[in-house]
């Protein structure tokens, strides 16, 4: 019975296995990125970046028609450009990161819409460009896995400066020059994980498996390593449970995954061991000396 509900969907259908593989890759890459976004108060940046990707996809479309590879590459380039320009402006001028990013993504979005209308077609580009987790073909799966691998490797390389900069940027500036490159590399990682999110969860929910697990982790751990582990674990659990939910009910898979993550989030807000509401109402006995 339990086997039928929880495991049989994956043994019986290959598309479910592929979806599970995709969602695990997405969780491994996206959740750590989400934790850093949260710590740097950039949780909404992902959504802004998602819009920045449009002109690149549009140029790819203009050059080679409905070719997924060209459009994805174009989107990556546009996302990197906006991320790096915004990063440079916020590091060299007084303008804060959120403001410069907002400016660049709006410019990028406007350019994208212009380019698409010049071509005079009405195909919903983002709809075509970004797939559905139930339709994972080999190239898409490879792209997602490669992006997750790159994310983990780069994250390991820039981990120390990134952590220090997230908690005490002034200190980092006094001891090292690694802050700026680490920051830019981090923004690039945000972009490639966004592309992963697009491929699996669709445009609207692309950032869901980055941000929600990070929010969950915040209620269970005070140190970054713990947070990252909990975030990855809750992302994997949400992905698996969401797929099962979508299999047993008629909820589309992308929303189902995010809804499971949202349920975990609500439970964490209530019962979390770090500043959860219940914990605040009934604090444990203070240790006495």
């Amino acid at each position, binding site marked *: 019975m339990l086997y039928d509900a929880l495991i049989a*969907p994956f043994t*019986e*259908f*290959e*598309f*479910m296995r*592929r*979806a599970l593989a995709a969602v695990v890759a997405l969780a491994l890459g996206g959740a750590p990125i989400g934790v850093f976004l949260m710590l740097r108060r950039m949780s909404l940046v992902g959504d802004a970046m998602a819009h920045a990707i449009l002109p690149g996809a549009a140029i790819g479309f203009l050059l080679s028609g409905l070719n997924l590879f060209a459009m994805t590459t174009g989107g990556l380039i546009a996302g990197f450009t906006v991320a790096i320009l915004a990063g440079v402006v916020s590091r060299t001028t007084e303008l804060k990161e959120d403001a410069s990013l907002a400016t660049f993504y709006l410019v990028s979005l406007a350019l994208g819409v212009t380019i698409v*209308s010049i071509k*005079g*077609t*009405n*195909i*919903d580009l983002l*709809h*075509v460009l970004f*797939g*559905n987790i*139930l*339709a*994972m*073909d080999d190239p*898409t799966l490879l792209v997602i896995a490669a992006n997750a691998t790159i994310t983990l490797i780069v994250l390991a390389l820039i981990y120390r400066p990134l952590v220090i900069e997230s908690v005490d940027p002034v200190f980092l500036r006094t001891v090292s020059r690694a802050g700026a490159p680490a920051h830019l590399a981090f923004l690039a990682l945000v972009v490639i994980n966004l592309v992963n999110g697009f491929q699996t969860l*669709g445009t609207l929910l692309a950032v869901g498996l980055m941000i929600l697990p990070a929010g969950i982790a915040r209620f269970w751990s005070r140190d970054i390593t713990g947070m990252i582990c909990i975030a990855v674990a809750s992302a994997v659990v949400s992905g698996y449970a969401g*797929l099962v939910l*979508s*299999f*047993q*009910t*008629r*909820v*589309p*898979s*992308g*929303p*189902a995954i995010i809804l499971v993550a949202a349920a975990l989030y609500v439970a964490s807000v209530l019962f979390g061991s770090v500043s959860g509401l219940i914990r605040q109402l009934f604090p444990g006995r203070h240790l006495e000396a």
Partner: protein
Amino acid sequence: MRRFQFWLACLALAAVSPVHAQDRLDVVASFSILGDFVRNVGGDRVNVTTLVGPNGDVHVYTPAPADAKKIADAKLVVINGLGLEGWLPRLVQSAGSKAPIIIAAKGITPLKIGSAADPHAWQSVANAKMYIANIRDALDAADPADAEVFRANAERYLAKLDALDREVRLAVAQIPESRRKVISTHDAFGYFAASYGIAFIAPLGVSTESEASARDIAGIITQIRHSNIPAVFLENVSDDRLIRRIAAETGARIGGTLYSDSLTDEKGDAPTYIDMVRHNIKALTSALAN
């Protein structure tokens, strides 16, 4: 003197041609298939513009200002109706157009999918004939002076459609009865299925907007395995990765592209309605008849 004559001729041409152009009735059709119908009935007496062009998706269309301008200039707007063009009423209102709006599917008994009507009525040739009659009457009313021309054109085109209908029935008759079932991306062939007896199963609903759940996909895969459905088809307006995955998982073959909601441009397989139906039936018979 000669030069004077030349200029006089130019002047005469310049004076005549706009009058000639104004003579034509400006008609706006909501998408390419309707545009083809109006062009066939109106002939050279009408100027047809379509809002959603070749290979465009009429379900999720976002109108541009240029579309409002086309509608404002039109003397007649032809739409499908049955809930296909949800974006159109507001567009007509904001364009401030006084042109009458003709529902081409008027008089057709809609098939139901759930509680909503299935808008893809043109996929049955018998319905297409109703479309033509409705368009002919609308053109007559808008431009009574050319009524004779419209009637003659419609008569000719209806005869072609009759022949097409016979052609489709003949082709379907060649497919063994047990093999008359296929999978296509969205539910666009309900009327075709009802008229000609080929069963269509689609992962997306009636509109390309909706998203499939894992349960839907699993249901379709099980169905293909159990009832030995021989082929799956792609459409020109939908993302085909989902269908390719289903094909890979079941061993059903991909029978090619079916044209459902949109014609192709001049160079494509289906530049006109008649070409479209012929292409679809050819793709179906070659995939299903062993």
